[in-house]
């Protein structure tokens, strides 16, 4: 187990180094932050002074080495715009994003898994057909459209939910549902198809032959096997949502880290972009690790070979 953890940690560090270096080079190739940062009235002289003050007048190699040295000391630099530490700007916005993602994944699992089971119990039954057409709808409605539609009904027409902000749980209802909508459909379809597959497997047939009641067969014997692919997709979706909630954060004016990162990207605020990339990469590495662990718990074969 210890060797497993060490290998994993080493791989994670290597991954983070590659990601940071790639992003560093890519963003420095895209443009000049001073061109966006300096007000248009600023003279050439003042621009040069500003460039030097931010260390952007150094050769790229020097900037890269300095940056890596800073990262190793836990210092990711300050934002060109706010003067605040870049990592703090991202980290203080992580809770909002985590809450949003956690809530929507929770909703998606709590609705999607039962829907999937319900549909799988009687394939081609009424429930199955209704849920299948709903899931097509769920995977094809774009996020921004659904978000605006919800705001129109629940904020303007009925005036029961706030259109923006992150002050209370009520603020998260519409954004979480907006993000969850597609995932409900996804989990429904996934659970339905894997469950249908496992229901024909030997161990399920054995259980039925032993005279185990149908609910127990489905929930205990079949579902446990069917959950394996779900865990993978769950991990992927969590990562994707964590780094991809930007449209939802923008529409509902939630102060999440993705909105911050998008602003930083528009403005070429390099330190903030890099801090964001590090956080997201670290998050993905952690999720992958947790998914591997979960596999071990659910499937003894993985545990013994791992």
């Amino acid at each position, binding site marked *: 187990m210890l060797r497993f953890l060490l290998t994993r940690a080493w791989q994670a560090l290597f991954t983070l180094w590659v990601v940071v270096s790639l992003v560093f080079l890519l963003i420095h190739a895209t443009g*000049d932050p001073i061109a966006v940062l300096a007000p248009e009235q*600023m003279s050439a002289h003042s621009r040069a002074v500003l460039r030097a003050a931010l260390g952007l007048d150094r050769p790229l190699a020097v900037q890269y080495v300095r940056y890596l040295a800073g990262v190793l000391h836990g210092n990711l630099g300050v934002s060109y715009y706010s*003067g605040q530490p870049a990592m703090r700007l991202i980290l203080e916005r992580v809770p909002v994003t985590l809450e949003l993602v956690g809530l929507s994944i929770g909703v998606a699992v709590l609705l999607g898994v039962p829907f999937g089971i319900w549909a799988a119990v009687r394939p081609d039954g009424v429930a199955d057909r209704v849920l299948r057409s709903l899931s097509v709808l769920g995977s094809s409605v774009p996020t921004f459209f659904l978000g605006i539609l919800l705001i129109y009904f629940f904020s303007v027409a009925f005036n029961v939910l706030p*259109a923006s902000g992150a002050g209370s749980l009520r603020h998260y209802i519409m954004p979480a549902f907006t993000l969850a909508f597609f995932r409900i459909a996804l989990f429904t379809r996934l659970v339905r198809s894997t469950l249908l597959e496992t229901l024909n497997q030997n161990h399920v047939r054995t259980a039925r032959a032993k005279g185990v009641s149908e609910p127990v067969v489905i929930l205990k014997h079949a579902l446990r096997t069917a959950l394996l692919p779900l865990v993978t997709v769950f991990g992927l979706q969590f990562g994707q949502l964590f780094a991809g909630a930007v449209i939802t954060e923008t529409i509902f004016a939630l102060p999440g880290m993705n909105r911050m990162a998008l602003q930083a990207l*528009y403005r070429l605020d390099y330190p903030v972009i890099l801090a964001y990339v590090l956080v997201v990469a670290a998050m993905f590495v952690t999720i992958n690790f947790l998914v591997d662990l979960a596999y071990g718990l659910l499937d003894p074969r993985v545990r013994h070979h791992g």
Partner: protein
Amino acid sequence: MPSWTTRLLAACGTAACLLAQSPAAQAALGDSAQHPLVVAFKGGATTLDPIMRSETTTESWQRNIFDTVTILSPQGKPVPRIAVAWKNLAPLSWQLTLRAGVTFQNGMPMTAEDVGRSIMDAANNPKSQMREFVNDVTGYKVVNPTTLEVTFSRPDPLFPVHLSAIPVMPEALIKKEGRAAFAAHPIGTGAYRFVSWLAEDHLDLRAWKGYWGHPVAFKFVRLESIPNGATRLAALLSGQIEVAEKINPEDFARVKNSGRARITSVPGTRTMYLAMDDWRETGSPGMAAGEKNPFLDPRVRKAVYEAIDVGLLREKIFNDAATVATQFMPPLMESFDRGLKRFPYSLADARKLLAAAGYPHGFTVRLDATNDRYLEDSLVAQALAGMLQQVGIIVQVNAIPKAVFFPQMNRGDFTFYLAGWGSVDPLSTWNSMFHCRDAKLGFGHVNREHYCSQAADALIAKASGSFDDAARVKLERAAYALADRTDIAYIPLYFQDEIAGVANGVVWNERPDGLILAWQMQRK
């Protein structure tokens, strides 16, 4: 904000239900932290250090906490804030009389030393974005506790206007705790004191009891960012917020018909213009290889000018919330000449001019524009292409993000482009945008077109040393007449309006400088 349950209870409409309303819901707007006056912006302040960012939203947020030395009236004249009077002693010296009895929000009295050092900070801090306003200041002398003498390397007749950008900061405190700590908990002399904030998301403010000016109408104020236009509008119409800036022109009718809010708009200080390469004979980017640059011929420039129906842009794209530019300088500037009119829109005349210039069938050119910087920018570029096609000029629109656009523009990579310029005053605009390029003296640093008129430069040089307002304005007008009318250095199109939606309970009229200041808002 009334809670969900209170709203539901209120909706049921019976007397019993109404009695159940919580006290918070009955408190008047802006009287409690639970029910603040909320102003929503498209963006948010990136920093609360008041010299680090010269950008309207950031300044709007900051200037509820900080006072500037002067402020601009709706007519563009500098009027007293911290300075109550100013006098020009010699070409290189201004005397400021300061308001007595002003205190900072930490209880420290504001001194002349604070004002002097704030000006020097703005001028010298390497990251200061206010440098251009006070570039020529060399030092200051405290004459007595309310008199400050400021010295210059070059005459600055518009110093009182420039002081409207200079915030007064508690310099002793900044020296003690450092700029970063100061920016995290800003202290100024303004009407509101800092409560808490999240950069670019929201800023909570509370009226400050020791404020020297009129007591504010709303004690609790929240400034927040709602980036999406539809959400901002929904929040205004549902009563969640009181003021929403930058309402899209197509939504004006919805605001007006809602019965809950109205639209306020005023011509701003941003000139939207078309720029044309004035120096490359051939090889202009965006022209076919080897083709001659048609814009070197003044007749072509005038033809393009006359082929554009700005009134139509104003009506169709901006729903009348833009002001047709009769000259490059916006109405707020001292040199603005009310008597001027645009060259009349005339396709026939434009075709004649093109034929005389040797382009009877027009030519093909690329028009570069942003798609995320100015209100409806890419739409305007498309409309311009359609208009110019009527006189045979085939325009290929290249609308790109600002992060890509501006570096290219600054390198001079464009032949024909749509951009905006925010004017501070006619002299600095001339020296940046119109003056013959001179890297050594710092003239024409954004004159990417290489426009050059020595005669006009001489007029501006004379105006720059003139402390006689009438004489200076006359010189400025003469210079701009040369650039605007004779040479057509740029084609001014329209002044972007400053627009906001305001809920019925609040009195607020947009300011030409675009600042939204909670301390100037009133109750209705």
